[in-house]
């Protein structure tokens, strides 16, 4: 079963990577606003003159 060391090591590395990504994202304020991104993604950003009134 020695391969389990490999799997756990690899899985843990990925988990730690995600943990680091999570901490970084939180620190940089990615999740401070948990309302407006859901609304903003609905807006299409085609140039103004092409917008239908």
């Amino acid at each position, binding site marked *: 079963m020695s391969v389990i060391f490999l799997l756990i090591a690899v899985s843990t590395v990925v988990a730690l990577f995600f*943990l680091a990504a999570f901490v970084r994202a939180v*620190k940089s304020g990615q999740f401070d606003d948990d309302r407006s991104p859901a609304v903003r993604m609905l807006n299409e950003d085609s140039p103004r003159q092409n917008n239908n009134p």
Partner: protein
Amino acid sequence: MTERFQYDNRIVKNFLFVTILWGIVGMLVGLIIAVQMVAQNTPPDAWYFWIVRPFTWLGELEWTKFGRLRPLHTNAVIFAFVGNAIFAGVYYSLQRLLKARMFSDALGRIHFWGWQLIIVLAAVTLPLGMTTGKEYAELEWPIDILITLVWVVFGINMFGTILKRRERHLYVAIWFYIATWVTVAMLHITNSIELPISLTKSYSWYAGVQDALVQWWYGHNAVAFFLTTPFLGLMYYFMPKAANRPVYSYKLSIIHFWALIFLYIWAGPHHLLYSALPDWAQSLGTVFSIMLIAPSWGGMLNGLLTLRGAWDRVREDPVLKFMVVAVTCYGMATLEGPLLSLKSWNAMAHFTDWIIAHVHIGGIGWNGMLTFGIVYWMVPRLFGTKLYSTKLANAHFWLGTLGIVFYAIPLYLAGFWQSGMWKQFTPDGYLVYKNFLDTVMEIKPAYWLRALGGLLYLSGAFIMVYNVVKTVKSGKLIANEDAEAPALEKVAAEEGGGHWHRWIERRPIQMLVISLVLVAIGGLFEMVPTFLVKSNIPTISSVKPYTPLELQGRDIYVREGCYTCHSQMVRPFRSETERYGEYAKAGEFVYDHPFQWGSRRTGPDLLREGGKYGHSWHYYHMYDPTSMSPGSLMPPYTHLYEHDLDTTTTKKKIEAMLTMGVPYDKEPYSPGFSDRANAHLMQQSDAIVAGLKKDNIDADCNKEIIALIAYLPRLGTDIQVKEVTQR
């Protein structure tokens, strides 16, 4: 300052078109093998003989038997259909969410053509029997390397786009894409470590139980990070877009993401319950699988509740219909998955059609229906026009939904039903269905209905092709879509000062998640000491490496994809030990590169095949299975009687095994054995042919069949086998 730029729609269009193309191909192959599975040996006097003849004729050819087409079907739908759908959706949504064109058009093109090349190579090599013998990872090592390279190209293109974005916030869909990329890269590389002996043949570096664990860690996470996370990202983008309202709870979507990815990685061992895998590893898999219900259902509800107040539009808009069914199927599959991870449930469902139904709820329900919804939403937008026919899209929707129903429900019943027959005892303690084939005969009606379900689903897809072609013709591709967005400002200095822990104290939810992660990781390290116990694999001294002829026979077994219908794993239940013989021990598989435990018993388990039948039985049976088992659904393997065994590989194979620690330099073999391997091989095949002669069979000792019938009677005979009455 507002910047003007253009979105690249051409690459999206390319990926979208091949999604449809490969989807049709993959489903068609699925339909072919579904019919083969129920009709393979239809007698010529049956009224439907000529209806099924095209399919059964394919089943008689060397290259298009079930065992070779099944890997083609799974690889085509997973990596070609779903894979290209992921790329189409990611290339479309990523640009718009980040307000930036893709990092590089050239990389996009390399990614596109590279991925199609991989698919074409798979479509050629799998029917030719070039396979590693590991489910969903069958492609041989040169293609594995190509996959890695193309995946890296995709990664550079995606992360490059993220770096040059004009929107600081990464919408939750992008998090799902990132997790997909990172995890799939890791899974693919870890599971594909193999030792090549030629351009088209390699051996898994891992053996037996270890190989099984790595494979299902990969297999489960392939479901998690190839079929689930990217599609959740797509759901979080396309569903709000199609409904034109924000996702029900953005906060929940973030929790969904983080909880899901931290839990998913550890659930793999639930594929190996009651197997020769150590018990603690099995329990670990179960625990994490059960926990997965929470984030999965959180995500499903988040998707469905996005439509709150808009359900009247679901009635009219086929795009939303497809998405509602897709997300509902996601919910069903993710509830069922944890339940199937419970040992008691698994004891009944494993190796039956239940699992096939389960994965198709995920495959044709979740992945298929969401892809169709996205296609109907995206094509008119890419071509600046309207969908040609809503009516036809609705027809597709109903055919698809009915297809799912007709596919899954009969198979659920068949699984339940057959498992019951396998386990049924008479009052005096004998198996009621002593002959395995009898239990197969009972569920044949379900197989017919399943093929009908597949046909319905596929015909819906053809309607979509027509609708898309018409729509595309009525419009013109907007290859470069104009957009404008303010440039990203430099990040303001981080809110300085204060204790480092302040930021997390203000965020209770995040803190909860982080603590959960730490607990999970901590728990694992607590278990490390148990890993150190060497007794996990009891060494069985009577287990010996395969003889050269048996090894060649085993490679034929792998090449023909026997594992797609036969398991080699007897679980410790009375119903199984009574039918097959002694249950499997971890130490029996130490020389198996790759492991061949299988996942479905369309035919009986073969672990204890040795000692049940003689060489002549196998010789007749492989030529025409119905001659020995009337009514058998197994295709004939006549090509094995025509092809000469390639003995030029023997030396290399023995040397490769030696490299991986298989003791061909110890008793009963000796150092330098690889040079004498072919002499040994000839000796053994001559002996088998002499034995066949006694049964009045004139066999040629150079043919492949001799190797296969050397391997089969050897199976499971290394350890003392209990008397078995009949399988």
